[in-house]
């Protein structure tokens, strides 16, 4: 089958699940992997070389907080040497100017720094980490000094929709070349906290209007990407660009997944990089072939003219909402399980949040 399977473009490397922040919208699994289970430096370095040889072009070093690993610089150096475009997805609170310079020297191309809110008190409350916001702002100077390109990333939910305009202004003031404003995707901790995070339709519409106006105004100065929430859509997204088509994810302990939430799907087993080569897993693992292409699709996807546009949407979302990962993603209005999504939208809002830990 490998003749018809394109090589992957992107690798999300979750170096660790450890993170000083406790954001309740985190997409990490609620059962976080422990430090003792994490891959060692040499294994991560081998993964980077195998990824580049397999055809991966872009590497996202993520977590948890990837800077919680003291070997982040060594892993980055190997990845850059192998030719991967290397992007660091970070909360920023464990980094300083010296580490940023070392990362830039190692070949890091880009930093994606998260913000939780434009105001320190609210931001620290959401991240459940006192002083975090101030540390992030202080780090930005070091990012520029190291010559690293900066994207500011903001995840939207009911607790920070009052701050969209202010966060755009802050990203601009911080000299970000790019701003990514993404509504929460309900996996992992975010799914657990869904009733407290879910915005209203009016709030979603307002956030979109604010972002589109800013994008127009800032054209040529700061690029803005907006990720709309699945639950308020009528057609699903091509999750990960389609299962096993463009991306793979390696967990801290080395499990190779088609997306970061795939381990929630019962009945699939995910080989580890310590057991098989990345190429062997990408082309041959049953879990990668399970939802590849269109042959697995039931109706209404099977006969839909968008089946190769959205690839049936998100398998993990279908599972979360219908109990069955093989169903059409209920983010699609054509899904026979649409009512499950609408029920979640209409569920009474809750105030209590479970911070990840």
């Amino acid at each position: 089958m490998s003749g018809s399977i394109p090589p992957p473009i992107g690798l999300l490397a979750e170096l660790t699940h450890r993170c000083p922040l406790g954001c309740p919208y985190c997409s990490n699994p609620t059962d976080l992997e422990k430090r003792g289970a994490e891959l060692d430096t040499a294994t991560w370095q081998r993964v980077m070389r195998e990824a580049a040889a397999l055809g991966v072009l872009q590497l996202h070093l993520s977590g948890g907080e990837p800077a919680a690993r003291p070997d982040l610089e060594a892993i980055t150096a190997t990845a850059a040497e192998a030719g991967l475009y290397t992007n660091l997805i970070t909360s920023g609170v464990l980094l300083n100017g010296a580490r940023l310079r070392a990362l830039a020297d190692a070949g890091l191309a880009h930093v994606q720094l998260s913000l939780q809110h434009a105001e320190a008190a609210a931001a620290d409350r959401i991240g459940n980490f006192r002083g975090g916001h101030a540390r992030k702002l202080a780090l930005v100077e070091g990012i520029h000094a190291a010559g690293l390109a900066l994207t500011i990333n903001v995840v939207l939910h009911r607790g920070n929709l009052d701050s969209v305009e202010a966060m755009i202004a802050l990203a601009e003031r911080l000299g970000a070349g790019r701003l990514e404003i993404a509504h929460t995707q309900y996996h992992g901790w975010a799914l657990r906290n869904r009733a407290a995070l879910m915005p209203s339709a009016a709030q979603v519409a307002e956030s979109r209007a604010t972002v589109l106006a800013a994008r127009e105004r800032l054209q040529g100065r700061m690029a803005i990407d907006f990720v709309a929430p699945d639950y308020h859509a009528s057609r699903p997204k091509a999750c990960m660009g389609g299962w096993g088509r463009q991306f793979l994810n390696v967990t801290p302990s080395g499990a190779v997944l088609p997306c970061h939430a795939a381990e929630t799907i019962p009945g699939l087993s995910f080989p580890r990089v310590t057991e098989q080569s990345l190429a062997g897993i990408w082309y041959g693992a049953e879990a990668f072939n399970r939802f590849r292409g269109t042959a697995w699709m039931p109706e209404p996807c099977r006969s839909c003219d968008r089946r190769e546009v959205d690839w049936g949407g998100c398998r993990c979302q279908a599972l979360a909402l219908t109990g069955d990962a093989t169903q059409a993603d209920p983010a699609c209005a054509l899904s026979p399980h649409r009512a499950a999504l609408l029920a979640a939208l209409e569920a009474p809002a809750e105030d209590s949040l479970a911070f990840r830990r």
Partner: protein
Amino acid sequence: MSEAPRLSPHARLRHDAARGQWVLLAPERVLVLDETSHAILALLDGTRDVAAIAAQLAAEYDAPAEEIAADVAAVLDDLRAQGLVRP
């Protein structure tokens, strides 16, 4: 002499051996380059201006320099608008 364009610090030009193509990489972006775009980007070294790049390509491809200069300007304008080339 006009200012010499160069790739933005976050943009990386590389050969994609797995797919047999040249690509320009940026955050969340993979730009597949055609032969012309690659030939132009390969000459961006921060010292050559548009005229120098066009002259070099005109000699290499044995084509009229004015035509090439227009192509070079169009490709660079497009990449500049995407933040991939400065200034």
